[in-house]
């Protein structure tokens, strides 16, 4: 699957937010590649920097956000040669956005304009980016709704006349308007209930198979990614903690944070598991402490973690050279440390 060069290659990418109190390091030295036809999941808690990363890659952030380093190389079929997104001027960026890289934003409830009907919004987007005559744009808008399974009669509907699931489908249809190579989805199904969520995800996968784009899927719900994504990047405090295939993250998680995430959702299928959760709260990125950012919440932590450099390295015991972890001490085979459980947790198990 990973043969050939990636369609998007993010290298040493860093973003800060300039505040009067100092720089908030929202994204630090992230390396991530996306191949055609691949679903890469970006998982992390709120505030971990996953949305900042995705938006900064498209240069959608403005001051006080500042890209402080790295490169983002885009290799599309319609673009001659590799392009560094970070070097593009505003006109070139306009060419890139939507046509090459499209985004489905979080909370479709608010992303659509409430005073325009669906048709006008889709036609607007198409005409802004494709320069089609109005008649063709109208026809295309209808075709896009077909694609996501909404009857064409809904073109005249206003957003408030659509259910949450339908609005989300409209957003997906709009993102696909210009046949992009990459679709970035930022928590596209978080506000929806499970039945609708599953329906939409299945549709996204189907569209991906037919149209052949790559997906960067951002969510805090790791259980969803395990089923959906080919590869998963786990992000914490602006840094990648672990990267691996869905199977590796699920069955051989190396990093303590990935293990914590895996242990924090109740599963419906299979035997009842021991749930632990992750105690504590994410660190303050304004004054990051030296060493591993996860240390204060880590069950495996030792004093060495304060000084050692936590860079993504290959998991030594893994057969896959692309299974990377930022923790040099904990390996997939490391047993979980004992931790006295609270009464409430024991009750929850009972």
């Amino acid at each position, binding site marked *: 699957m990973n043969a050939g060069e990636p369609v998007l290659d993010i290298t040493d990418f860093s973003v800060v937010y300039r505040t009067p109190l100092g720089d908030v390091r929202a994204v630090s030295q992230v390396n991530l590649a996306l191949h055609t036809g691949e679903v890469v999941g970006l998982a992390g*808690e*709120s505030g971990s920097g996953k949305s900042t990363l995705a938006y900064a890659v498209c240069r959608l952030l403005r001051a006080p956000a500042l890209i402080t380093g790295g490169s983002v190389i885009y290799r599309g079929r319609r673009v001659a040669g590799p392009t560094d997104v970070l070097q593009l001027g505003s006109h070139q960026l306009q060419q890139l956005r939507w046509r090459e890289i499209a985004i489905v934003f979080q909370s479709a409830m608010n992303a659509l304009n409430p005073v325009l009907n669906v048709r006008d919004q889709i036609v607007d987007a198409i005409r802004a980016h494709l320069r089609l005559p109005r008649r063709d744009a109208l026809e295309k808008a209808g075709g896009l709704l077909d694609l996501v*399974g909404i*009857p064409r009669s809904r073109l005249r509907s206003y957003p408030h006349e659509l*259910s*949450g699931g339908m609005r989300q489908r409209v957003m997906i249809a709009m993102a696909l308007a210009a046949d992009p190579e990459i679709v970035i989805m930022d928590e596209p199904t978080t506000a*929806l*209930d*499970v*039945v*609708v*969520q*599953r*329906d939409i*995800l*299945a*549709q996204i*996968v*189907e569209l991906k*198979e037919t149209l052949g784009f790559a997906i960067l899927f951002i969510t*805090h*719900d*790791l*259980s*969803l990614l*395990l*089923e*959906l994504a080919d590869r998963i990047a786990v992000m914490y405090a602006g840094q990648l903690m672990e990267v691996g295939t*869905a*199977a590796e993250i*699920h069955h051989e998680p190396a990093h303590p944070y990935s293990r*914590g*995430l895996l242990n*924090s*959702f*109740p*599963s*419906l*299928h*299979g035997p*009842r598991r021991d*749930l*632990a*959760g*992750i*105690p504590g*709260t994410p660190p303050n990125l304004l004054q990051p402490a030296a060493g591993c950012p996860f240390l204060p919440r880590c069950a495996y932590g030792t004093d060495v973690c304060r000084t050692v450099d936590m860079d993504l390295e290959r998991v030594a015991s893994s057969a896959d050279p692309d299974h990377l972890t930022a923790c040099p001490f904990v390996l997939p085979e490391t047993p979980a440390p004992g931790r006295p459980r*609270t*009464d*409430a*947790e024991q*009750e*929850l198990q009972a």
Partner: protein
Amino acid sequence: MSSNGSSEHARGREVVSAAAARGPLAMEAVCLSKDFRLGGGEVLHAVHDVSFALYRGAVVALVGESGSGKSTAARLLAGQERLTSGEIRLDGAPVDPSTRRAFRQYKSHVQLVFQDPFSSLNPVHTVHHHLQRPVRLHQGRESRAEVAREVAALLEQVRLTPAGQFTGKYPHELSGGQRQRVSFARALAAKPSVLLADEPVSMLDVSIRLEMLSLLDDLRQRFQLALLYITHDIASARYFADEVLVMYAGQIVERGPAEELTQQPAHPYTQLLVASAPDPDNLGGSLRDGGTGSFRRAKDGPPAARQPAAVATPERGCPFAPRCPLAIDRCRSDNPALQPVSAARAAACWRLDIAAPGVVAERGGT
């Protein structure tokens, strides 16, 4: 409809709630119905003939998709909406929170926690202000020192410690989880016997949800709260609740002990819910091969098959019939009542023998 409301209710009650073993009966909802008038003479049956009971020290989960009426049911129980018909009983006595004084008294027994901790706290008031009001109103405490002591105690109960660090803070200075803890503390300030939690964790990060649920569980145990946990996440209901009620289009379509119901769902709708929950063990499963699961093909069906029933029409058959893969003519003309399938389980479906042969066979044995 073949069965009238009262017989339906009577049949539902043959089932012994899985929550009853935990403690004495606290609150009973008897045949609750709530209609909303829409424009054009249409009526939305948001809640239709719903009966269940809450017991001290037990968790009952109300599970359903958005628009199923679960939040309306909570608002009815909280006295925030008037019943169209039915009765709410608190400690055995019918309640009527329609006058101001009765409502205030009712609120000191029954408290509601909302989903969104970002909008349920007033941004211009401190944590102390949010908590001191119910302490004064419901506990009748007057002196400043007493109130301050009580507020600190409440914050410690929800593990916001040291309390002194939090009393002066405004909602925007707190994280989502911390805000929801303040909401819990505010509900506890009235010293209620019943706590209605409407999606208390669904706005929070997955990693924080578990902590919040174990906090709720801890509070339930310490104060012998009768807890109604409303959620669309049936997986968390499995771990957290004693009894699960599944609601669809305003009606309870299945009820039973949490583990049994989630592992062996009987009603086709419950089966759909369970099948839709993310399943990490199903790597490369239905989602990634293009979703060839049985419900995937609903896309090709009539548009109604993909849309949740917005308006329940109980006069005209089972509300789930338009989406149900097993529906027969009878389902479209006749609304099934909840019928017991075992000592603690009931389901409202005409085709249980096909939908859940295993569960129904057990009924023969018991």
